[in-house]
């Protein structure tokens, strides 16, 4: 009897979660899809976003994401390797770094936004720019990326490391040929989480990459991200809801596409690593 109650409870919870998800996505698709068209994706917004499309905003969003990831991935992976592989001789240092990362991961995004505005935009003189927004996002996703990558690397059995050492493999080869490929699924999961957080971010970008909805000419131009566009249309522009919905559908699709591409690229990389050995 207790078993049955537990089973029903579990199913109920699972269904509830799925129902919430289905409701959100269903509502978005229902309200957004009718306004979605090729023209919406390929033209610039007019009338404060009520009419026209989102092309410049899509481009800005992707540029911001690229800047963020180009900075965050090498730094994040490097720090994770340092923490998991090289901080064992100095556990105090490792603990200190880990603790600060956990604190940073819990900092609200608006704080990162204000920091990015003060540091990148004003102090470094980047102004409102895609570069400044991307770097701010990089600061924000780094803790997430580092901690998840570190966990993934730590999950690789120590036997691999000992076997590699017994074979006399250089440390770098061990890392590149054995540890990173073995940890890839975990690394990718962290990366996907980071991309999701970056794409969804509004508060940190409002004061860094800005509000300009023109097609960006360079990384030093201000560019509005999709999330800010949705926020502005939904909260600030009377009559902007339908395009806000359509933009939200685009944002979700973008996220799904990027995730799928990431998984695919990881699979391919893994395949090469293993067959090349």
């Amino acid at each position, binding site marked *: 009897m207790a078993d049955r109650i537990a089973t029903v409870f579990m199913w109920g919870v699972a269904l509830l979660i799925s129902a919430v998800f289905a409701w959100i996505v269903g509502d978005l698709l229902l309200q957004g899809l009718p306004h979605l068209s090729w023209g919406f994706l390929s033209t610039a917004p*007019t*009338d*404060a*976003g009520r009419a026209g499309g989102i092309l410049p905003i899509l481009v800005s969003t992707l540029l911001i994401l690229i800047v963020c990831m180009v*900075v965050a991935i090498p*730094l994040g992976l490097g720090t994770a390797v340092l923490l998991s592989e090289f901080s064992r001789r100095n556990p105090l240092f490792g603990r200190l770094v880990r603790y*600060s990362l956990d*604190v*940073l991961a819990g*900092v609200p995004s608006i704080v990162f936004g204000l*920091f990015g505005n003060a*540091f990148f*935009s*004003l102090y*470094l*003189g*980047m*102004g*409102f*720019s895609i*570069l400044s927004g991307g*770097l701010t996002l*990089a*600061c924000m996703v*780094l803790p997430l990326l580092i901690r998840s990558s570190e966990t993934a690397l730590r999950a690789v059995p120590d036997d691999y490391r000992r076997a590699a050492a017994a074979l006399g493999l250089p440390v770098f080869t061990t890392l590149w040929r054995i540890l990173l490929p073995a940890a890839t699924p975990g690394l990718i999961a962290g990366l996907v989480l980071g991309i999701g957080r970056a794409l969804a971010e509004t508060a940190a970008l*409002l*004061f860094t990459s*800005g*509000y*300009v*909805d*023109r097609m960006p000419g360079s990384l*030093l131009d*201000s560019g509005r991200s999709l999330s800010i566009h949705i926020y*502005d249309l*939904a*909260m*600030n*522009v*009377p*009559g*902007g809801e339908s395009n806000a919905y359509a933009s939200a559908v685009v944002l979700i699709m973008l996220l799904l596409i990027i995730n799928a591409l990431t998984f695919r690229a990881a699979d391919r990389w893994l395949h090469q690593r293993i067959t090349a050995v």
Partner: protein
Amino acid sequence: MCRARIRLNALCAFLLLMVACSGEPQQSADAGAPSEKLTGQLTGQLTLTGSSTVAPLIGEIAKRFEQTHPGTRVDVQTGGSSRGVADARRGTADIGMVSRALNADEGDLTAYPIALDGVAMILHRDNPLPALSEEQIVAIYTGQVTNWREIGGADAPITVVNKAEGRSTLELFLGYFKLRNEDIKPSIIIGDNQQGIRTVAADPNAIGYVSIGTATYEASRGTAIKALSMRGVEASLENVRNGSFPLSRPLHLVTLGAAEQASALARSFIEYAASAEVSDLTEAQYFVPLTQ
């Protein structure tokens, strides 16, 4: 908090190193210095920041300005009137956007009105009360009246919707009713106009206040709200324009220092924003143009 700041600083140093290594960035904040060519044609870049109410309008005006003045670039950022004032003072922005009259301690700035906006008190459409007196509104917002029954409505608690600190609609509301924000007993605090509309439309017992343009537009679309008359004057764009609606506000562009200290490009943009050439844009954003 202090520790977190130290860590942020460490992160800064790290990133600074990285940025320095990559040989970037060029200065872009100062690129705003516009230059006037011998031909008298305007070129250069302007940055505007400030009121989120004004930003969509100025964004549209900026697009038209760029089209009629090739070689210029006008970047519009947002963040609230207070930010517009701060950025204009600091020089981060060439022009600030402020959706209220300037305060006494803001005499270092010059304000240029570009349009008008009214603030309307809104109730849910199903609320039976046709109008509220100013005393009743004050009593509701200060918590002396907490149930609609007390002023002749249904027996239901009043949901008082107030704006967040720093919003110019809040300042206009407080100034008009001679209230202090500490005296107000809000049930819900909101940020933007659209959020106010949504909150009131979703709650039959709510009272709130939003920009008149937003309110009349939403009411005409069938959103479940109604805008209240003030002192017997109907809340409409027409009454804001002819000055009879009491609860209205000017939308301003501000520059640091006297008018002559602003750059030629900034002055010409401000002139353009207040001109009849853009009154169709102003009306399209549900504001009232100064010139017809």
